[in-house]
């Protein structure tokens, strides 16, 4: 096929190139339009977050705000005690990220480096834990937390997500550590380093890039979690940013501009993480897909 097509292709090349010169601009315009369409909901939200309720009801959702109205933002900020919600989310997501990475590392060290007997079954179990819906755990966890006096505490949510996230982390790290260069481990062992020392002095430094990706992912995933925080955290003192917004949804105090102001405030941290960690995220998604 190649041999027969080559001459014709060569002659057809020139117009093809020329044609593509125009076509590429059309393609760019189409894709840009699609990308902008993705952002339209954010534009709507921004437009209405700075509008007074009266302005909204007389001029509708598409009008330009008649004044720069920030009371909606302030109302939401004060009404839900937003700084506290931020702190709850940071505390929960931050603790989970660190603890889950730690647990994943310990598990994966035994499975990937130690190659303990039956490790394929254990890894399979962790993989399974990744798949199961949280609904199949939630009632016993809710009940258990009530019995243990941990209901409506951030600690309960931290423990639960440490385990859920580390199930994924263990699965991922075990396969990464499965290919860890044996020579490095053996050299360290010959130098007299014990397993504990090898973990912290040899394995950890080599794994740092992967662990930092996991840390970022665990943080963002936990930050965005909904079902378990919704069930476990029921009052103003303990709720996270997404749960606080959702539990006010449908409230009479939440007119459209306040809803948008609340949504805007709730999205800002996530957008900041996105901008800060964009490169890490891209790297992590690729790493995850390779597995």
């Amino acid at each position, binding site marked *: 096929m190649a041999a027969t097509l080559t001459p014709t292709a060569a002659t057809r090349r020139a117009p093809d190139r020329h044609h593509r010169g125009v076509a590429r601009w059309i393609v760019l315009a189409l894709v840009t339009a699609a990308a902008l369409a993705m952002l339209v909901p954010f534009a709507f939200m921004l437009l209405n977050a700075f509008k007074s309720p009266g302005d909204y009801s007389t001029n509708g959702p*598409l009008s330009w705000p008649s004044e720069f109205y920030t009371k909606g933002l302030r109302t939401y900020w004060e009404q839900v005690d937003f700084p506290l919600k931020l702190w709850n989310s940071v505390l929960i997501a931050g603790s989970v990220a660190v603890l889950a990475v730690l647990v994943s590392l310990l598990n994966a060290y*035994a499975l990937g480096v130690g190659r303990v007997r039956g490790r394929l079954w254990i890894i399979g179990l*962790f993989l399974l834990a990744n798949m199961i819906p949280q609904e199949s755990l939630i009632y016993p966890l809710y009940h258990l937390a009530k019995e243990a006096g941990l209901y409506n505490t951030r600690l309960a949510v931290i423990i639960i997500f440490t385990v859920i996230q580390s199930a994924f982390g263990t699965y991922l790290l075990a396969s990464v550590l499965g290919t860890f260069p044996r020579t490095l481990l053996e050299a360290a062992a010959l130098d007299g380093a014990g397993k504990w020392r090898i973990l912290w002095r040899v394995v950890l430094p080599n794994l740092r890039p992967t662990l930092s990706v996991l840390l970022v992912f665990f943080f963002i995933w936990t930050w965005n979690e909904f079902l378990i925080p919704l069930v476990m955290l029921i009052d103003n003192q303990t709720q996270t940013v997404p*749960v606080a917004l959702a539990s006010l949804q449908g409230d009479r105090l939440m007119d459209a501009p306040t809803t948008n102001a609340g949504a805007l405030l709730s999205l800002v941290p996530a957008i900041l993480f996105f901008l800060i960690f964009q490169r890490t995220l891209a790297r992590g998604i690729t790493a995850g*897909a390779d597995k």
Partner: protein
Amino acid sequence: MAVPDTVAARRRATTAPPTVTAGTRRRPSRRDAAYWLYLVPGAILFLLVIGGPLVYTGYLSLTRWSGVGDPTFIGLDNYRDLLHDDVFWTSFKNTLAMIVAMVLLPTLIGLVLAAVLFDTIGRRFRPRTAAALRAAFYLPQVLPVVVAGIVWGWILRPDGAFNGLLDSVGLGSLRHDWLGDPDTALPVVMAVMIWVQLGYPVVVFMAALERIDPELYEAAEIDGAGWWRRFRAITLPQIRPETFVVGLTCTIAAMKVFGPIYALTRGGPENATNVPSYFAYYTFFKKLHVGYGSAISMVLTLIIVVVSVLFIRAQNRAERRDGGL
């Protein structure tokens, strides 16, 4: 630090030389025992938070219980009831709709978008342009999906921005309570889910495309293969591993979807958008039928596990077939 290390090593080497020579074959079994210690914290936590609760939910699914007092054992009654429960069947039918909206369509659109972004825009314009466009598609993926759901819920309200938009372009006659009408609620929720999900395949596929040897494309181009031919003959087969990963993770996510449904419709109107996980949540915490909710959860869990195993098997078979060729 290096000095004491080597000293210690030498000391050990002189005091215990047999471990190095005779111990090579026996080492794995000796290693086993000590490495188990590293699994202890993980194992305890796992049993406490995942293993135990899962088994307990399995037990509860065989009981009638309101959450107080003792559960009454009733055997398989809950499962028998499920078979005759219309809401249960509706919720699983809606799962199929979620798979279309969260797996099928995002993967197809994502494939084309990634190929266009990588091929046409990344190469014929600056790669930065492609990266910026990619970020726009990916943004919904990093947001708390519930918050995004609440914004969409407002946009689609009778007095929301979507109807306002219809008015302003002269289509005011199409104004509608999009999420309040059982006929439109599901398609509209599906559209929102495509918006949420699309960025993930775009990012994964763009990364996958970077892996492909550009010479393959150059050779095909010299042979006169057009964009579509190259897409089908090179791109698709080359990125099949990523397609499997995207397919599996998105299918699991679609079967578990909860937050967007909670924020947009709470399963309504008239169960038109109910899904198993919301149905289970509602049965647990609003109707206080813990046994019945557990049965719903167990069925969902079982289906997810079976689908995942089939998926992974299909992938392994495909890989083996490629290896054989």
